[in-house]
């Protein structure tokens, strides 16, 4: 982390905005309004760092990921990748640059072409970017399969012959093919069972260490995010409401929305079963977001000013920014936490489970 902080950021996002026009009428199309999907979002990602972008459905986190890869054009704002503004790139230059920024999708079933063998799927990014010849691409494909924990001979098979977790590994191998610097991971483990999810999370962490990758990890699951990220940005209705390093965000969340999100996660420990403070109501429509602070309609601490004036993202501490008028005075939530799994029968059994696994592992 320390040397990563010194070097220039891999990605700088500044004032990113995306509005979608809502139209009505078949013959004379009229724009009747705008869905403000992403509104003035700024952040940076350092080399080798994982920034998580979290929030509930419709908060704009996936749109932000797509804007960064320029899979869609932003309404306003700047995205600089290794210092270069991507909005200025022409088609060819953009394609050359995409070699260095890749994406992993949520749905391992829909993101692999069913008519291509795994070998072809892995060779395609190399072919597109004109790297190597057929033989070297095939060799790279076999190497990639080993890197992600599959077997070289799997290259001859088709996606349907794999389980969901294995397909996600293939998706990861494809993203790695052209040696990228940044990978946008869009809900990469949400569709997987927990035991498989853990395998993929561990794999992503190993690959990051091995290849010095930066991740933008888009997710709704704050528990997974806590495990994998260095810093966390929380979005609500298109706006960034809080950004901080992981420890600060989980130990001392300042925005009422972050506090509510953390409180809402069911804890896998019946001893922590408590009556929680709950958010009332649903997320409002991004078509007509509330005035002032967009969260004020559900916020337990809202005051008159919140519906009138939009809060700025203000610095609470170095590296910790919060968009709330009153974060200084909001009472701190009680964070339910345990010292760890260090004691108890479960911890001892888990240690025995892991030890037995290591003892059996070949080599």
């Amino acid at each position, binding site marked *: 982390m320390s040397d990563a902080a010194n070097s220039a950021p891999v990605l700088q996002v500044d004032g990113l905005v995306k509005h979608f026009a809502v139209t009505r009428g078949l013959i004379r199309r009229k724009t009747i309004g705008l869905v403000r999907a992403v509104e003035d979002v700024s952040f940076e990602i350092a080399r080798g760092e994982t920034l998580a972008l979290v929030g*509930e*459905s419709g908060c704009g986190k996936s749109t932000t990921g797509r804007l960064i890869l320029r899979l869609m054009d932003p309404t306003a704002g700047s995205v600089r990748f290794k210092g270069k503004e991507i909005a200025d790139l022409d088609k060819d230059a953009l394609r050359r640059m995409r070699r260095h920024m890749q994406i992993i999708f949520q749905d391992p079933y829909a993101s692999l072409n069913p008519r291509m063998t795994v070998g072809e799927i892995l060779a395609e990014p190399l072919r597109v970017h004109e790297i190597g010849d057929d033989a070297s691409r095939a060799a790279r494909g076999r190497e990639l399969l080993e890197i992600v924990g599959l077997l070289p001979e799997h290259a001859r098979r088709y996606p349907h012959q794999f*389980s*969901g*977790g*294995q397909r996600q590994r293939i998706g990861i191998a494809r993203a790695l093919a052209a040696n990228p610097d940044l990978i946008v991971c869009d809900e990469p483990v949400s569709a997987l*069972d*927990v*035991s*498989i*999810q*853990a*395998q993929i*999370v*561990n794999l992503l*962490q190993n690959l990051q260490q091995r290849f010095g990758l930066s991740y933008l990890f888009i997710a*709704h*699951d*704050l*528990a997974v995010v*806590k*495990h994998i990220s260095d810093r966390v940005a929380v979005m609500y209705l298109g706006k960034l409401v809080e950004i901080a390093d992981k420890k600060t965000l989980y130990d001392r969340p300042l925005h009422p929305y972050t506090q*509510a*999100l953390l*409180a*809402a*996660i*069911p*804890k*896998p*420990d*019946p*001893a*922590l*079963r408590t009556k*929680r403070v*709950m*958010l*009332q109501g*649903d*997320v409002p429509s991004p078509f007509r977001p509330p005035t002032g602070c967009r969260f004020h309609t559900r916020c337990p601490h809202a005051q008159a000013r919140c519906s009138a004036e939009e809060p700025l993202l203000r610095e609470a501490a170095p590296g910790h920014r919060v968009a709330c008028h009153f974060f200084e005075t909001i009472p701190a939530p009680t964070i*339910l*936490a*345990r010292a*760890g*799994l260090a004691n*108890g*029968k*479960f911890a*001892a*059994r*888990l*240690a*025995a*489970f*892991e030890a*037995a*696994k290591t*003892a*059996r592992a070949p080599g």
Partner: protein
Amino acid sequence: MDTLLEVRGLKTHFATDRGLFRAVDGISFSVPRGRTIGLVGESGCGKSVTSLSVMGLVPSPPGKVEAEAVLFGNRDVLRLTADERRKLRGGKMSMIFQEPMTSLNPVHTVGQQIIEAILAHTAMTPRAARARAIEMLELVRIPSAAQRIDDFPHNMSGGMRQRVMIAMALSCEPALLIADEPTTALDVTIQAQILDLLSDLQRRLGMAILIITHDLGVIAEVADQVLVMYAGRIVESADVNDLFADPQHPYTIGLLGSIPRIDVDRKRLATIEGTVPSPNNQPAGCRFAPRCPFADQRCRLDPPPLRDISPGHQVACWKAPVEVAS
């Protein structure tokens, strides 16, 4: 305790082109009146098929449901006529599903759908049924219920639709509510609202809940007793506090170790190697043996029975309890 539902030796198999799929393969459990039983496991473990079998919603063919008995009250539901089953479903035994989008009919208002359910199971007049439907929508905390009753499902959010499903399921005062992944499709703040609503309704109405989920967090929040399923069998059954503090089956241990948690700091997640066996090609002995770090020859040959390890705690494992130095 007063037993409401008792399932003994349930087997649900499906005949397919690729052989016999043993989705549920000989499971027994009971649901006491007014309590919450959690059925937890990963995709394909048979948890949903179990609930569909109890409800009599397994299509036959290709499905075949067999059991020594599935006693609800004092009646064996597998031996009821089609008509008697229909009366029971949505009446004394009711179900909600994961997808509140697809389980409501898009061309009818939510009110029409709740009223239909009430009229099918009671002798109420349509006017009384409508009043009852509004009362139910208020019970599930839908604001301005008297107006929202005439909304179509597409006018409602996912959380609201799940509330409508719950209102419909509870409209005939069931003794048992089966909830199959009721919050999986919802955002976490909405999930918290729905779980809270279910617990509150249970306290007020006294029904038993069989909740089916892959999420051990949800189980820890709401269940009294937990059944862990793996590859069509129950591998562990325990009181919720026991299960989380003192898990006995290696699968349960691995599963608990693989959940990322916000309340505990850990460097690495535990993983369970490999994948779930295919339901038409199950291992001969313990079905978890190919993935189990403790497995030996006996585990691979002999299926372990579910046996008592301490009062109220059962496990199907030859190696349990894994002795640990404390």
